[in-house]
């Protein structure tokens, strides 16, 4: 589904990613772990086309297409979703208007008719129930005045609405208490099928107690320095990152 080869990327002239190689297959869950500043968030931002980052070398192929050649909105239409580490507040833009525009733009890209108002509201209700998002939040402006937990839950709700092929969860666990973490993780698990893939970016092992990865990678200084099964996450939790830095 996703093939990253020798990816180099920089921000403001400073190279952060120094040759990433990563392949994610259909239905797989990959965890990317690593200490602060190792390039985890840069990787997720580069994959969704954030304008602040420049790709200097390498390639990314998504479902056979050159991902790096696409505009951010087209990457979304092709099925890539980023659950933001810091979801943005958009005062004055209602969740309903925002989601309806997003869903219908995706449908237009795929040659489908826009949903009618009734169909759309039905879809919203259905997905809201799936991830347990309060109906009051769905009537407010996008993320405005939401608590940390509500924002993260809203990300998963948007993921449910857009049904992506590849979801990148960028530190979805940050700022969540244990209960919120469990609810958000359960939402993600409900949405995971054999057809879609997930990349979980996290510092800690605790999220991986709920979202079980098939593969765990360690990112350090812009490169993937270790790849193994889920047991690697436990080992990192126990031993920290130092042994990898030294190795």
């Amino acid at each position, binding site marked *: 589904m996703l093939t990253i080869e020798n990816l180099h990327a920089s921000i403001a002239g400073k190279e952060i990613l120094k040759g990433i190689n990563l392949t994610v297959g259909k239905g797989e869950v990959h965890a990317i772990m690593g200490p602060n500043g190792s390039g985890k968030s840069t990787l997720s931002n580069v994959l*969704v*086309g*954030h*304008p602040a980052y420049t790709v200097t070398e390498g390639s990314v192929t998504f479902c056979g297409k050159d991902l790096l050649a696409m*505009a*951010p*909105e087209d*990457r*979304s*239409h092709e099925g890539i*979703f*980023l659950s*933001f580490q810091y*979801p*943005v*507040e*958009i*005062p*004055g*833009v209602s969740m309903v*208007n*925002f989601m309806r*525009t*997003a869903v219908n*733009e*995706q449908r237009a*890209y795929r040659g489908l008719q826009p949903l009618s108002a009734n169909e759309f509201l039905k879809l919203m209700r259905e997905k809201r129930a799936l991830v347990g998002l309060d109906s009051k939040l769905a009537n407010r*402006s*996008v993320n405005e005045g939401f608590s940390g937990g509500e924002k993260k839950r809203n990300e998963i709700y*948007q993921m449910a609405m*857009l049904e992506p092929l590849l979801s990148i969860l960028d530190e979805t666990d940050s700022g969540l208490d244990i209960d919120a973490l469990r609810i958000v993780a359960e939402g993600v698990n409900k949405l995971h099928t054999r057809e879609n893939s997930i990349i979980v970016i996290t510092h800690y092992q605790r999220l991986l107690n709920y979202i079980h990865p098939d593969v765990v990678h360690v990112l350090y200084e812009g490169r993937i320095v270790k790849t193994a099964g889920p047991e690697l996450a436990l080992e990192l939790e126990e031993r920290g990152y130092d042994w990898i830095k030294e190795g």
Partner: protein
Amino acid sequence: MEKLLKDLENGAGVYSWGDGILHLKVPAGVKLSKPVYLTQLLGENDPSEDKQSIVFYLGPGSEADVVITDRTVADRPFHITRQLTGEFADDATLRLYLLQEQGTQTIWENTINFNVFGHFTLGTLCLGGGNITNRIQLFNGAEGATADVFGLNIASGTQQVTNAVTVTHRAPHCRDRELFKQILDGEAVGRFEGLVQVNPQCPGADSQQTSRNICLSRTARAYAQPQLIIDTDDVRCSHGATVGQLDEDALFYMQQRGIPRHEARLLLLSAFLNEVIDKVTIDGLRERLRMMADARLRGDLNHCVACGVCKKD
């Protein structure tokens, strides 16, 4: 319309429309059940220079909504000056909306002058024009009088729009609000000059001036000058002004959800104006305004969507 005519029979009335003066009277205690719409279309054969005046007579306890639309339908210069003034009795309520849909060769100067003894709401809604000046001078003259002034301005090219608002509190416990929002593109210039003056022996004054501006180009200019002169203790007066660009983080967030950048921009710009549009209390006008602002923001600069007068190119 029938209801309006009935209202007029009940005593509300247009007196005369001569020498460029329109008299509009709402007698004591009469509450007009529907808005009065006054629309002026300036066409090829109308004089290019004109002085006009609208005089209101609002009796005690009367209430009216008045919507004045001025639209040019000929692509040539106009220079119009207009006075809006009148008598505003105790507890009278006037909600006045000025819709400005003019061509880029139009110079328009409104002078709005009222002694408010009741409740006055004024919206200046500028969707087009060459050089527009709204000079607004209000005196809150009776205890508890309120003045609520707001405006939106979408300007591009070399358009210039000025809203100069002076509110003077002459009695205790009066309230005023000024909220102006501008979206400026090209080399457009938008000005908000606000002055709130609280005279001596006017405690309890409650005032708030707000000017918010988005410049879409490096050459657009927004000037905000909210000022206060306070000669009484025990007042609550605040002012705020911002000039900025669209939030890049919000734009990218929306793009990541599949909303193309130009649509995302429109969503943010509409959201920015909504706070002002929501202050319009006439449902139909509010919806039409939303539609027109949207069309204007989409670049349909000189035409409004709901208008059958001018043909779309």
